[in-house]
């Protein structure tokens, strides 16, 4: 083997060794590469899985966000509904309802456009409220609606519909007329049926309208209908009441005028009676005086026949003076000129005095006298002279109309709560009819019966009695039954001044 061969052999060996080493290294690298590739695949797979999960999370999150948006919309809707309902349900004035609606719908409902149309008497829609639409555009909307009988009919059917539920053709029609992308239209109904419609809509396609909006607007429309129904009902009732009140007011004014006239006439009458009575009393006194002088015979002997005539002049003059005095008293009390002289008195004493004065008269008819006087009656403030006249008048009348052997009872009791004395003059006389009882206290009224026909009277006594009792702030009334007797009741306060104060208050 030459040297060259030897070198070649060594070279081959070295190369084989290098190749072996290289092969070994390459084998190791390949394993590492394989491992790295596996790791990369695993990483990619992890990323892909991560992405897959992320997509699921986002999808779920979108759903949650959409659900929340829907929930927010519902919450907003319900909140607005509650606010609006509260606002419009607390007024019964239709204009005020729309004023409040304008405020509330602008503030609380997030739709871009809001309209309320109401039907007029001719069943034509008229705009009543408008938010987010130019007034001139409302006119065009109404014109377009009226040009479209199908739409008019749809409205009159009274159903709620929206861009989420209406048929496509109808949707397009509404979108075109109102220039919106999304909308809800709901009927406004009250107890009499359809009275209008409410429209809400959004022009922007960013704000969709869903079934939730449809529900809210439908409820709102029903609330508006109810409030308008109530307002209209109230308006009707209010108008009727106003007419009635106006009539009552007219009548009251007329009655007041009439009463004033009567009072004026009465005052003039009293003044006239007072003046005339004064004028009559002076010459009458002279006549009576001269008649008495003549009767004494101081001016010469008076024949018996003349004396009789003079006595009649005297008696008639007395009657006339009595009549004039009574008239004067009534006139004074009515005109407030007669001042009552209130002093403290005992009721029992007054009754006793009356009994003393009238006992002779009662004896002529054999009439029995009874009294039932409450021992608790305190002293009371009254004008003794005037109350004497009351008792004298009432008891005289009782004697006059009570047949022989009858009886007269005086009752007096004390009402502590009311601080008044209730007095009754009861007889067993001929009584009177209901008609007579109503007119009994009228001046110059005399009951038409046999006794009155035979006994002369002025018809002023009970009228005067009534005036005196009223001047004491008391009341007088009569109860009676024909042939069964009569009771005169009257009340007197313990202190007329206090009563007067209370009445004024």
């Amino acid at each position, binding site marked *: 083997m030459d040297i060259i061969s030897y070198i070649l052999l060594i070279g081959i060996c070295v190369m084989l060794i290098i190749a072996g080493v290289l092969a070994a290294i390459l084998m190791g690298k390949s394993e590492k590469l394989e491992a790295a590739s596996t790791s990369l695949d695993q990483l990619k797979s992890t*990323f*892909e899985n*991560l*992405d897959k999960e*992320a*997509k699921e*999370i*986002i*999808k779920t*999150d*979108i759903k949650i*966000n*959409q659900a*929340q*948006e829907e*929930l*927010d919309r519902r*919450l*907003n809707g319900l909140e607005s509904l509650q606010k609006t309902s509260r606002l419009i349900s607390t007024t019964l004035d239709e204009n005020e309802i729309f004023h409040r609606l*304008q*405020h509330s719908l*602008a*503030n609380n409902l*997030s739709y871009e456009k809001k309209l309320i149309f109401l039907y007029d008497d001719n069943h034509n829609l008229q705009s009543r409220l408008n938010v987010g639409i130019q007034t001139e555009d409302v006119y065009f909307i109404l014109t377009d609606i009226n040009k479209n009988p199908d739409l008019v009919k749809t409205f009159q059917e009274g159903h709620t519909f929206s861009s989420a539920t209406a048929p496509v053709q109808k949707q397009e029609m509404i979108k075109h007329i109102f220039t919106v992308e999304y909308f809800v239209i709901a009927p406004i109904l009250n107890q009499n049926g359809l009275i209008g419609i409410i429209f809400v809509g959004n022009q*922007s*396609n*960013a*704000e*969709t309208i869903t079934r939730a909006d449809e529900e809210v607007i439908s409820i709102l429309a029903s609330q508006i209908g109810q409030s308008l129904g109530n307002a209209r009902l109230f308006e009707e009732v209010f108008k009727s009441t106003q007419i009635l009140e106006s009539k009552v007011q007219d009548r009251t004014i007329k009655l007041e005028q009439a009463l004033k006239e009567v009072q004026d006439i009465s005052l003039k009458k009293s003044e006239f009676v007072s003046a005339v009575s004064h004028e009559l009393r002076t010459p009458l006194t002279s006549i009576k005086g001269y008649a008495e002088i003549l009767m004494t015979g101081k001016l010469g002997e008076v024949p018996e026949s003349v004396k009789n005539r003079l006595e009649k002049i005297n008696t008639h003059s007395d009657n006339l003076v009595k009549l004039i005095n009574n008239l004067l008293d009534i006139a004074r009390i009515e005109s407030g000129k007669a001042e009552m002289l209130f002093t403290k008195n005992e009721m029992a004493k007054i009754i006793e005095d009356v009994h003393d004065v009238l006992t002779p008269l009662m004896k002529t008819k054999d009439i029995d006298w009874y009294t039932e006087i409450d021992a608790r009656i305190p002293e009371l403030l009254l004008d003794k002279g005037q109350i004497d006249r009351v008792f004298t008048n009432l008891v005289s009348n009782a004697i006059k109309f009570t047949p022989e052997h009858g009886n007269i009872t005086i009752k007096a009791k004390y009402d502590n709560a009311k601080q008044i004395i209730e007095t009754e003059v009861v007889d067993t006389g001929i009584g009177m009819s209901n008609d007579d009882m109503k007119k009994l206290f009228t001046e110059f009224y005399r009951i038409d019966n046999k006794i009155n026909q035979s006994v002369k009277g002025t018809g002023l006594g009970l009228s005067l009695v009534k005036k005196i009792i009223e001047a004491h702030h008391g009341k007088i009334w009569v109860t009676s039954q024909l042939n069964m007797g009569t009771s005169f009741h009257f009340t007197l306060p313990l202190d007329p001044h206090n009563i007067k104060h209370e009445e004024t208050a």
Partner: protein
Amino acid sequence: MSFQIGIGFNKDPNIELAARKAAIEARRGLIGKRPSITIVFSTIHYPPEITLPIIRQSFTESKIIGCSTAGIILPHSISTRGLGVLTIHHPELTVGIGQIASIDSYQDISKAGALLAQQTLQDFPSQSRDLFLCFTPGVIENLSLLLMGLRSVFGNVFPVVGAGSCDDFHFRKTFQIFQDEVLLNSAVGLLLGCPGISVSIGSAHGWRPIGKPRIVTKSIGNVIYTIDKKPAASLYEEFFAQKMDDLRNDPIGKMTILYPLGLLSYETGEYLLRNPIDILYDGSILCQGDVAQGSEVHIMIGNKESCKSAFEFAANEALTGLRGKQPQLLLVIESMSRLKLFGHSAHQEHEGFNKIFNSEIPTIGFYSNGEFCPSENGDASKRTHLQNGSVVICAIG
């Protein structure tokens, strides 16, 4: 010297009356002092053409700026309808305001941002400046560029807080207010400075990544063309189980603000949120701010608890930043995404806030579509970013 703050709010359906009442209530808070600046926040139910002249009657001597919003935040309530007026007096407060109209007409929006900053500076007669606040259109295509323009003038570390104007989730009509003008597609700015005051900003969002990380394989500015080499919108197609056309047209597409894209910042480990504002026909996604090609992107998810915690975190951060000074005014800017997430119970989000700050401190806030604020976990420089879905609490003490 302390601030006199007046805050007025009203939601009377009578627009003129609401404006008058809100203005009078705010003016009353100044106790006869001259207002230095007045800021108006208005939901779109109150047309500024009507309300602004009425508000002006109460603030004839004041500079006024403002914007539209989805809702107004008050210490104990949230109102998605109403008019809020904030007016501030301080004897040493200096304010400058500026505006850039028709931003969409600028080919390079960063220039509009720079111009806004320069205009505001021209109106600012002092050297000492503490905060720049701006209101931009919410639907502008790339707010990041506007911010870039602002930073080119103010520098990267100067505190800039901003908010995209918004409406009632219709993404249609937003407006800005500058003095007596009502502007559309415009940005208005307010620069304020006052010796001795402290301004502290806390921000957070509370959204967390979900699913595997993906890579933005093609993007230019605020348009993401492809993610993992597939049309960007396919990401939402997969997650929402919806076809692209449905996503574009269906209201579910509006749900994307609840699931924004999160761009991972390798520096801070924090996620910058981007709300998709449109899905284009080729399947690309238009975002409110820039998205860098090659970014790691995630679908983000938030829930009420995580957002409540974030709110509390931001409040704490704002308080801590005052370094012991008592806050005299709290301004809250909150993404409308959070209002959508919380819905009816939006006020619950602020429970933590009320635990941290005394309810006597004058507080007003509003909802926005896009926020300029420092990042959450703080790069130390507190550089301002465009965020979505965030809450920004600005405390002045």
